[in-house]
């Protein structure tokens, strides 16, 4: 059903169709519209759900942890500082193998405080064991939520999934969205059947103390599941495609890469802008393309290798930093080629769009312009050198 909708409201609608039994959240911009809409749905009896208003993101994550442990499908959403405040619990949810789904409305990290979009929040939590899927547009964000629950609750997975959507650009943007209908979601996403849960008829101990004799194996198991997900995600997205009619590879998306000489690699909403630029440059006969990373965790190194191994020049766009080192996405893209015979001649790294600085078509064109035989490491696009000269007394 096509609707002209704000991204947050569209996400709330698909979450409603996924029928979580417990939702818990704490206000933070730009995530709030999602949970406000869900709260209204509960108030209007359009969603049968316990909506728990908590005193912090730490407790929001803890509430959905508890609800999931009790065998009920659970949902939360947050951004930025809220995600960081949840961080301790997020590691815990993954370690306890609980299939929680969280929407991260990607936002910059303080200080200085900044409510606008970049991806430093979820990228900083790449090591917490959660699956991280990045949406390019609102439609994709909507679809990824159904996919997220299906993946998380798969008995061979049992890991939490974070759907990452760029704050404001996607949460507050308005587009015509094909909202799934209940029958489709029901067909794709069966009722939650917990593999284990708190149950008075079968009492188990969850979250015990595990020492050196077994701890490594618990972490190894998550690592193996993340690796398995590289096969499971495309299978699930193929099933999604059959029911909903929209096709996703699930791990990556190749756009005009087959004969390309220069390819940009990116995650999230910037891919939409990049596709427009690719189209314009292609019309002028330039052989350019885009590789979109949809799954950041698990990191699809093999798929990336296959997609880029014959591309002479690759530019990686990061909307986050690992201060003091290489940009996070760029370093992993480069690692995918280490020790391989086939590889791009150049993998240049660009930092763009921090703290909500617009990434315009000109920004993308600038990246293509700078993508030459000379490899660039951590080139900041649209930097304002005049601001760096300010003196503070």
């Amino acid at each position, binding site marked *: 059903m096509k609707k002209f909708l704000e991204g947050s409201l569209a996400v709330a609608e698909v979450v409603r169709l996924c029928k979580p039994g417990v939702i818990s959240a704490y206000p933070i911009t730009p995530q709030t519209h999602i949970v406000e809409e869900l709260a209204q749905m509960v108030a209007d009896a359009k969603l049968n759900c316990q909506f728990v208003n908590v005193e912090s993101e*730490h407790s929001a994550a803890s509430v959905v942890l508890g609800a999931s*442990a009790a065998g009920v499908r659970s949902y939360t959403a947050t951004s930025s500082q809220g995600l960081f405040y949840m961080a301790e619990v997020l590691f815990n949810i993954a370690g306890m193998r609980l299939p929680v789904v969280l929407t991260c409305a990607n936002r910059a990290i303080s200080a200085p405080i900044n409510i606008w979009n970049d991806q430093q929040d979820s990228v900083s939590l790449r090591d917490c064991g959660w699956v991280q899927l990045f949406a390019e547009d609102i439609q994709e964000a909507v679809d990824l939520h159904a996919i997220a629950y299906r993946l998380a609750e798969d008995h061979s997975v049992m890991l939490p999934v974070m759907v990452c959507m760029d704050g404001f650009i996607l949460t507050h943007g308005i587009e015509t969205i094909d909202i799934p209908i209940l029958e489709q979601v029901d067909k794709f996403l069966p009722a939650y059947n917990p593999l284990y849960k708190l149950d008075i008829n079968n009492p188990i101990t969850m979250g015990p103390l595990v020492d050196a004799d077994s701890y490594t194996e618990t972490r190894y198991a998550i690592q193996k599941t993340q690796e398995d997900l590289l096969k499971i995600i495309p299978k699930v997205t193929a099933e999604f495609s059959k029911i909903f009619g929209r096709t996703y590879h699930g791990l990556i998306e190749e756009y005009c890469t087959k004969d390309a000489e220069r390819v940009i690699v990116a995650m999230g909403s910037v891919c939409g802008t990049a596709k427009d630029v690719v189209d314009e440059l292609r019309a002028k006969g330039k052989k350019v393309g885009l590789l979109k990373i949809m799954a950041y965790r698990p990191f699809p190194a093999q798929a990336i290798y296959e997609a880029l191994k014959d591309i002479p020049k690759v530019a990686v766009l990061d909307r986050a930093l690992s201060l003091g080192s290489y940009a996070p996405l760029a370093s992993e893209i480069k690692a995918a080629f280490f020790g391989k015979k086939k590889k791009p001649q150049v993998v240049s790294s660009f930092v763009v769009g921090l703290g909500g600085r617009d990434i315009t078509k000109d920004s993308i064109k600038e990246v293509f312009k700078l993508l030459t035989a000379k490899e660039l490491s951590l080139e900041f696009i649209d930097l304002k050198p005049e601001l760096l000269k300010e003196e503070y007394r």
Partner: protein
Amino acid sequence: MEKRLFNPGHTACAGCGQSLAARLVIEAAGANTMVANNTGCLEVFSTKYPESSWGVPWVHSLFENSAAVASGIEAALRYLGQKDAINVICQAGDGGSADIGLQALSGMWERNHDILSICYDNEAYMNTGIQRSGLTPFDSNTTTSPVGRQSCGNIRPKKPMPDIAMAHGIPYVATASVAFPQDIQRKVKKALSIRGAKYMQIHVPCPLGWRYEPSLTYQVAKLAIETGLYPLVEYENGQLVAVRKIQPKPVEEYLKVQARFKHLLNNPEELKKIQAIADANIRKYGLAA
């Protein structure tokens, strides 16, 4: 083997007041109970993988969040229509309740979840090696409130957690002690018969942290009450409904059996201050028989 809700064979220290209280609590609550437990001694000594002492559904997540985890469990049970048949307990030590876990606890109380929150109060961070907490008593010698040339130990009295709980308007607040096992069990049953958020703070002596002979746990716990330093009180709907009456003994009787207070015994000025705390309790709650 007999089916128990809290099994022996765990690794608590000899004379541990908390292990005794935890068993009394869960046996009073019964098999239809789910427990969320903060990090701390109890979690460590009762759930060393692959073994567990717990015969009820039990979950541990982090140091400070059992009240929030329990809120999620309670919400899930409500969603499933099972809340009326199942008790939910969140439990923590004094640090996990009064310090790092107070925010989550306050949130749970304010939302008035149908949960019994229990604080096992052994008056310091025992699991990490006897550091002071918000419930460490005045002048107590701990590893982070040590006695020294310009220090008589912990500089503040215990944070008034029962009063803080009361201020949330929750329907049941009580203190208890392992000195009175039947009283603990009566209060747990009473609490669980009331809908809404409940708070119980149970005094659980720690031989290692308080430095007394492990065989004396009961006597030490009893002296805390008999001196007026640990009043046993019970509130329902904001009204004080019961106190354990005492014939007050001087505080030295309690202090002298524990090496954490050894430095005070030749210090009449400090002893006076502690006697004043006991006297204030006796007046406030009308403890004197």
